[in-house]
């Protein structure tokens, strides 16, 4: 079981990549812990999380091929 994580804006620089795959993660909270373990600096940033392009504000269970994005505040225009 594998999910895809996208890093946007400043977080792509902090993570050194704009995309990573994670294996065997059960939930969003589980995934967040794994990401922070790997990139502790991300904890200092303000960001929202989307699951399959929908912004979510609480924990969710994850399924095969889910796409999760870590999104700092938008800055379009």
């Amino acid at each position, binding site marked *: 079981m594998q999910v895809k994580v996208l890093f946007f804006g400043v977080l792509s620089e902090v993570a050194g990549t704009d995309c990573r795959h994670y294996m065997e993660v059960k939930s969003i909270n589980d995934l967040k812990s794994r990401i922070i373990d790997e990139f502790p600096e991300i904890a200092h940033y303000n960001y929202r999380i989307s699951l399959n*392009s929908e912004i979510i504000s609480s924990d969710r269970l994850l399924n095969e091929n889910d796409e999760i994005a870590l999104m700092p505040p938008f*800055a379009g*225009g």
Partner: protein
Amino acid sequence: MGRNLLIHGPIPGSSILSLLDEMGMKSDSGGHSLFVGQVRADEIEGKVVSAIEYSAYEGMVQAEANKIIQSILAEFDDVRSVDFFHSTGIVKAGGISLLVLVSAGHRKQAIEACSKTVELIKERLPVWKKEIYEDNSHSWK
């Protein structure tokens, strides 16, 4: 919106002209309000912005754009159409990075709805920017 709202690099004047040409066919519209956003050669702590590099969550941007458009059409009953384009990638200072066009029967709603669309784009469109300075350093915004 049938076309892709993301344009790689600066938005060319020809995009604006083609939107204006489409307008001409809608003779039930009386007012069109356009907003053109341009990269400004700002000076920030002694460094001058030479370009902005935009990135977007491409898989999410079209759905959010459709929500913005639907919300404007629901709020403004005189509005006939809402279109916009946003740049991705590098746009040098002086280049156009955002183009919004709202057509309405009368001027009041055209202007108000265009202004509101610009606010919603800034608030909801999953786009990020990196300011690049003349000394090649950068800063995320």
